[in-house]
């Protein structure tokens, strides 16, 4: 057996059969990519407005508000957990920033930084409780979701006396923060919101981390088999808590956008959005059970969401149908992912 001659240089004849097309099919996001192309062609053919630059910018903006969160949620899902508190945690972050700087009359940036700390802490607490109790993340984050929903409403009424945070548009630092989190850049006569660039940057960083760093290796491992990962020395707890904090970071960015796009936040908002982020990640090919997926997939999932959301309007259909489409898309995308994955695995 030791004398078996292994041809290291020449490509092994047993792998030569796998052409680039099959390699592409084995990628996690391929189902979503096919879905996105089909959807794009479909809407482009039924609506003239859909492919105009201004409409595309709007679609990208809509996608980015989901996509920024989908980056964190995708990583978390690859790491084997999911987070139901993301939707309201975004609002918690925005409320923290506005209420703090309003109540203490500080520069807005103080509130913004405090909000970052709060967002990371929420993520940390989620992860820490999960690791300590070993309860399913469904239960832990459902509890956080409910508690944050209550805190958002309760504290806002207690401090500000209403259901929305007071306007902070005249405060110090507001314009600068708005310029970063919520302004548009003019590209070829079309205003593209900053969130689109933040989104793309986040996807790039997340992809790099996932595919090219050891932390990425750990994320796949803790999601694929946490016991095996622990046994070979991967810091499972730190990795998972870190993932929840990464979700918190994404929530902070989106929260700041929500705040500075206007100048106040409704305390009851955000409920239900957590599912949109999860849907984007799942459509993008992230396995609900963990260990498989990609950041790019989550981004494509968010883009599909954006196209369907705005495309229905551009096609002048009744937006009532949107949720139906979303559900159908989720089902189709996951089935396609499943089939593609099985075929890719068997045609090695």
């Amino acid at each position, binding site marked *: *057996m*030791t*004398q*078996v001659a*292994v041809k*290291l240089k020449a490509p*092994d004849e*047993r*792998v030569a059969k*796998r052409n680039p097309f099959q390699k592409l099919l084995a990628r996690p996001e391929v189902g979503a990519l096919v879905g996105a192309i089909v959807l794009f062609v479909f809407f482009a053919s039924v609506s003239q407005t859909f492919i105009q630059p201004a409409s595309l910018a709007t679609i990208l903006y809509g996608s980015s508000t989901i996509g920024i969160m989908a980056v964190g949620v995708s990583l978390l899902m690859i790491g084997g957990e999911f987070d139901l508190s993301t939707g309201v945690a975004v609002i918690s972050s925005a409320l923290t920033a506005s209420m703090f700087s309003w109540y203490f009359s500080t520069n807005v940036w103080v509130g913004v930084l405090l909000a970052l700390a709060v967002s990371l802490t929420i993520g940390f607490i989620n992860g820490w409780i999960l690791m300590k109790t070993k309860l399913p993340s469904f239960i832990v984050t459902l509890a956080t979701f409910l508690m944050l929903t209550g805190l958002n409403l309760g504290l806002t009424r207690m401090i500000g006396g209403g259901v929305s945070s007071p306007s902070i548009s005249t405060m110090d630092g507001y314009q600068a923060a708005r310029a970063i989190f919520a302004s548009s850049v003019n590209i070829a006569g079309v205003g593209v919101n900053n969130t689109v660039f933040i989104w793309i940057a986040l996807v790039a960083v997340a992809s*790099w981390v996932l595919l*090219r*760093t*050891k932390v*990425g*290796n*750990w994320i*796949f*491992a803790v999601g*694929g*088999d946490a*016991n*095996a*990962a*622990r*046994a*070979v*020395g*991967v*810091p499972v707890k730190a990795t998972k808590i870190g993932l929840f904090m990464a979700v918190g970071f994404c929530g902070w960015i989106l929260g700041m956008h929500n705040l500075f796009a206007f100048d106040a936040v409704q305390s009851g908002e955000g409920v239900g959005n957590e599912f949109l982020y999860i849907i984007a990640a799942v459509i993008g090919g992230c*396995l609900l059970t963990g*260990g*498989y997926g990609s950041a790019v997939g989550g981004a494509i999932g968010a883009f599909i969401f954006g196209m369907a959301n705005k495309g229905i309007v551009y096609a002048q259909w009744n937006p009532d149908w949107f949720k139906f489409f979303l559900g159908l898309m989720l089902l189709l995308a996951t089935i396609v992912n499943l089939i593609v994955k099985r075929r890719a*695995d068997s045609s*090695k």
Partner: protein
Amino acid sequence: MNAKQIDQQQLLKDEKDPLTHTPVHLLSLANVGKHYGNIVALTDVTLAVDNGRVTCVLGDNGAGKSTLIKIIAGLHQHDEGVLHVMGEERKFGSPRDALDVGIATVYQDLAVVPLMPIWRNFFLGSELTSGFGPFKSMDVQKMKDITKKELADMGIDLRDVEQPIGQLSGGERQCVAIARAVYFGAKVLILDEPTAALGVKQSGVVLRYILQARDRGLGVIFITHNPHHAFPVGDRFLLLKRGKSIGYYDKKDITLDELTAQMAGGAELAELAHELEQLGGHGDIVKEVQAEVAETASAGAPTQLRS
């Protein structure tokens, strides 16, 4: 008793490390015990592991084999006795601690993450990186090359290191895990039932890798319930039963038949035959068991049988 038990005091004091000639064992356990709440999982286990030697731990299901390796691998801590590594007393808080002193474990079921490519599994937890600070990235090409080369050195001819490891056969997966432990400079290699789920041919392949690891100077702990797998490769044999050591032998002091007889528990077989007879069971089954009793009785451990 035909088979001469190793005098444990003698062994812990006088036996020398075959490579370094220092009077310490690479790894040794003295009177180690472990209980989970009020359940005693392991009591009074003594064993030694040396460079270039294979120590086999034999026992049936529930004998305490898993508890024993979990203690050595750092997944659990022992409650009684002492564990020495190179003469120094240790108690491992986590698998990382055990890995850091060179104890690598190849688990029967959780050796690898099935969905991840082979090379990612090979380097999992010990990734090669280049670059500085936050821009440290993995040296992917180098990791792939090393994986391919190391596996080839172990005689494993791989199709593609990008393949998810779940697509490999059970034996191949074991071998990847062994190669990984050898590459990362393990001094002690613990193999948890590596042949349990394998066919005859695959088992042979794995046994050959055990010998290769031994010849590279590793101390190997080979956990198994199959004396036919243990005997050809082992240098020492520890037999466990219900959390206790029922025998600890050097290879020169025991034969395969004796080992099998000890494992099977000749006394229990005799009891079973008796019970079957009383129940008026099928004659041929009773005869079969009786024949087996006679066989084990002639093979060894007569003292136990007479009782």
